[in-house]
């Protein structure tokens, strides 16, 4: 058994990683405060309940990232020869599944409220003797749940791209779009205030549909990653150009006739096999070892790579 080697983020990215960890801790602390405040004001507004549950779910990517960050650099061993990089992918899958499941539950719950024509009643509070309709307090709380979230999302996004971390990227994207949830809920509450009871349930339904769509998109990416999809960029929208760069680099080696590659993502790094049809040369094994070392130092994302000489590519498709 030859377990994969230890992985250490390159020096120039460690500061970005530490910053990402710090931001996720801040995110958790902030989200817990939002959850507590929202529990206090939710009442029987469906939109508020949905927004609150969505905030509870928002803690999952941060928790997943922080837990996974303690394991991903551990070297492989006999039991886990490929190391622990997949811990990010697993965390991503778990979070996506929770998001999707909760989105479905919220959609059903909101639909039932709409069908049963449940009319939300929002009372008042008295602050220093002044009566304030609770709806205004709810709106303030929703603003608190949105604006710092957006700021955190914008801070995390460049870090996610730098360290090629999909959980962090998804978390950043979701937080950036948090204002949509808050505004939908605000419109629901204002609707209730104007006497349109159905706007509350409709807003809740709109939020839950958005949660479902996020869940589906993330589930698709998480499952694809775990099925060893060819590496994609951090937004999972297009193939990573690094793979093509490796093909071109290997093709330029003077002893290489033809080259085909097979790469997969494991968390933040790539594992790959390079198949070459070599020209008739001496000391092919030494040339291969040199090429492997060269490719490992090519980019920090290339963690484990093997070069294999083959006679032909008959068994391998071109695509």
């Amino acid at each position: 058994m030859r377990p994969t080697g230890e992985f250490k983020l390159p020096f120039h990215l460690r500061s970005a990683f530490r910053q990402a960890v710090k931001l996720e801790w801040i995110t958790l602390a902030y989200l817990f405060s939002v959850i507590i405040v929202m529990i206090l004001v939710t009442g029987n507004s469906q939109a508020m309940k949905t927004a609150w549950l969505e905030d509870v779910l928002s803690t999952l990517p941060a928790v997943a990232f922080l837990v996974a960050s303690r394991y991903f650099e551990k070297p492989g061993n006999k039991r886990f020869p490929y190391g622990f990089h997949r811990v990010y992918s697993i965390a991503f899958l778990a979070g996506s599944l929770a998001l999707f499941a909760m989105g479905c539950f919220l959609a059903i719950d909101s639909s039932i409220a709409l069908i049963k024509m449940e009319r939300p009643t929002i009372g008042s509070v008295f602050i220093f003797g002044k009566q304030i309709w609770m709806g205004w307090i709810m709106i303030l709380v929703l603003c608190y749940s949105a604006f710092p979230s957006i700021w955190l999302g914008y801070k995390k996004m460049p870090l996610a791209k730098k360290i090629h971390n999909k959980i962090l990227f998804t978390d950043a994207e979701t937080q950036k779009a948090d204002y949509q949830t808050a505004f939908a809920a605000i419109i629901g509450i204002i609707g209730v205030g104007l006497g349109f009871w159905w706007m509350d349930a409709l807003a809740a339904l709109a939020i839950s549909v958005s949660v479902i769509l996020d869940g589906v998109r993330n589930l698709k990416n998480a499952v694809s990653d775990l099925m060893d999809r060819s590496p994609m960029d951090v937004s999972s929208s297009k193939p990573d150009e690094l793979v093509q760069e490796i093909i071109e680099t290997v093709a330029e080696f003077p002893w290489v006739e033809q080259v085909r590659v097979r790469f997969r993502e494991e968390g933040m790094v790539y594992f790959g096999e390079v198949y070459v049809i070599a020209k008739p040369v001496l000391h092919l094994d030494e040339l291969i070892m040199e090429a492997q070392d060269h490719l490992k130092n090519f980019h920090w994302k290339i963690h484990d790579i093997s070069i294999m000489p083959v006679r032909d590519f008959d068994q391998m498709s071109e695509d």
Partner: protein
Amino acid sequence: MKKSRVIYCSILLVLSFSCGIPKDGREAFQNALQNRLMVGVVEQAGEERSALDAEIELVRQFGKENNMKVELIYGPETKLVSRLENAELQLVVGGFDKETIWEEKVALSIPYDDFGHVFLIPKGENRLLFELENFIHLQ
């Protein structure tokens, strides 16, 4: 986030300030002002009768302060709550507290006494609740 979206939403919020929020879903308060405040009274007997009289007096005061005529309709609890759900009544009194079994079907006011008794009003009638809670707070 586009600035335009922020502006539109802010305008929406500002406009809503001038729209008399909160409003009733079924115009309970408005109907009470224009016609009469229809109050369901759960029939009580014995010692509870005097507590009920105090509740009724409180409701009459509320009506007086808002220039509303008050009409009392006596009946069994279940029937009155059913009429309240349909907004045929605006208020039901009968010594209810926050633990009442009807809390899923109707809305409850803030307690009006130290024993935690509340009034029952139809769900979604937020203006009526607003005015009632203001009245209770000032007592």
